[in-house]
């Protein structure tokens, strides 16, 4: 149970974005409660555990070797028509142990002075009264209810977020713009232990991808698949992942099965209210092309904490003021996410021959030693922008 009943900021959810936001605000001297409903932070893991480069992570925190599993130096993408794209480059990203990572960030928040309460569920948020919001809190062990107050509430409650909906924001995960995903922890090691491997396209899974991510330190691989919400009766992701597991690692044991939802809708229109902000998965900050949400969640939380601090200093925590946080996120990654979403929809909508051709071009670009990310993004941005998507292009040219 929390030690006080009145806080400056209550952060709901001790995922990476909630903990980071709590850390930043606590270190600026605010009285912060970080409420997490699970008994242990980060467990169970609902994540493929691949993330961006060391340098990106170290912008926000000291990277702790304890949770690093693999230094990645390449990506292999198996597309349709047998076209495979292999990209080798040092330091393209990291594999991490998400449970340890989440716990590390939560510890940083505690060290900065935030109060972390596990097994503590927030069950409701009142409208603003006299400059505060009241939160109903349930102790998950004793089931005792209590009420605490906050001058500002941060909803970082992840993909299952209800907090935004309690204050009237439209944050529901709307199919099909939410990925249904499964991940198997397989007791085996991949042939390319420093590469992320993906399968995408009409011949594997079109509206999503299958992944194999090796965790070298632990000697296991994460094999998973995710797809935009399927139609009723379509194959579920568990069966698909098991097919790949049987094909790639026939004799290996499945140690754990995890799953979850990945918001891939791109930036939402509105995710702040009076004395309330959302960040991380709850704000749909996940990258809609890759489904990666660790780095963008952290970046969003970092921006949120800056504006919350500014709001406290200006004595204005109203919706209009906090909208500056939304605008900042839009500039720093929202716009980019929209482009990536267009690329995604463009590739997914291509029929098999065109998709294969697209992958060939991509392969050529990578082999031609172009600086892959910038050139590829540049080209596809143009394509995506010009075409909007394949259906409209087809209409324009072929009918």
């Amino acid at each position, binding site marked *: 149970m929390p030690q006080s009943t009145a806080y400056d900021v209550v952060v709901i959810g001790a995922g990476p974005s909630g903990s980071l936001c709590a850390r930043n605000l606590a270190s600026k001297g605010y009285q912060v409660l970080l409420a997490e409903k699970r008994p242990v932070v980060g467990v169970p893991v609902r994540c493929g555990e691949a993330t961006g480069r060391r340098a990106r992570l170290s912008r926000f925190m000291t990277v702790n070797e304890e949770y690093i599993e693999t230094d990645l130096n390449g990506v292999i993408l198996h597309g349709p028509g047998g076209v495979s794209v292999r990209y080798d480059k040092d330091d393209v990203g990291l594999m991490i142990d998400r449970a340890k990572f989440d716990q590390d960030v939560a510890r940083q928040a505690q060290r900065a002075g935030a109060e972390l309460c596990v097994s503590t569920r927030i069950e409701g948020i009142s409208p603003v009264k006299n400059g505060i919001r009241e939160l109903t809190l349930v102790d998950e062990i004793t089931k005792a209810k209590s009420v605490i107050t906050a001058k500002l509430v941060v909803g970082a409650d992840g*993909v*299952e977020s209800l907090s935004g909906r309690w204050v009237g924001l439209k944050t529901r995960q709307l199919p099909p713009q939410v990925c249904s995903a499964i991940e198997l922890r397989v007791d085996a090691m991949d042939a390319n232990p420093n590469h992320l491997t993906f399968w995408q396209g009409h011949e594997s899974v079109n509206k999503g991808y299958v992944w194999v991510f090796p965790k070298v330190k632990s000697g296991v691989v994460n094999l998973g698949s995710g797809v935009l919400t399927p139609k009723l009766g379509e194959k579920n992701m568990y069966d698909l992942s098991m097919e790949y597991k049987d094909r790639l690692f026939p004799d290996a044991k499945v140690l754990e099965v995890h799953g979850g939802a990945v918001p891939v809708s791109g930036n939402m229109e509105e995710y702040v209210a009076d004395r309330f902000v959302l960040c991380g998965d709850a704000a749909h900050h996940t990258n809609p092309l890759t489904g990666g949400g660790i780095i963008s969640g952290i970046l969003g939380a970092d921006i949120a904490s800056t504006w919350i601090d500014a709001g406290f200093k200006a004595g204005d925590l109203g919706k209009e003021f906090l909208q500056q946080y939304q605008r900042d996120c839009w500039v720093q990654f929202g716009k980019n996410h929209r482009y990536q979403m267009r690329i995604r929809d463009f590739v997914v909508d291509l029929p098999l021959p065109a998709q294969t051709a697209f992958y060939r071009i991509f392969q050529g670009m990578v082999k031609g030693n172009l600086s892959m990310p910038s050139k590829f993004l540049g080209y596809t941005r143009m394509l995506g922008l010009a075409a909007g998507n394949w259906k409209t292009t087809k209409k324009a040219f072929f009918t």
Partner: protein
Amino acid sequence: MPAVKPKPNKTLLLDRETCISCAGCVGTCPDLALDMFGVDLQVFQDKCTYCTICVRFCPVGALSIVKTAPAAPTPSASGAPPAGLAA
């Protein structure tokens, strides 16, 4: 509050053996009829409108909607199937 409509003779069944507690379905439900307590998914049958969204979403196929006999007793809030349904 909207007027209470008569409930269709349906139940949202959760197969607890299959469910992996991923909580993904919670955020997709339009009617706040699902919530995750620890590793226990709770189905609030009184809120469910049987829209099938969570059924489509579930990555392991743990959710299904079944027709219940008109006289079937109201299922409990825990999502347990009404008596007589367990095959």
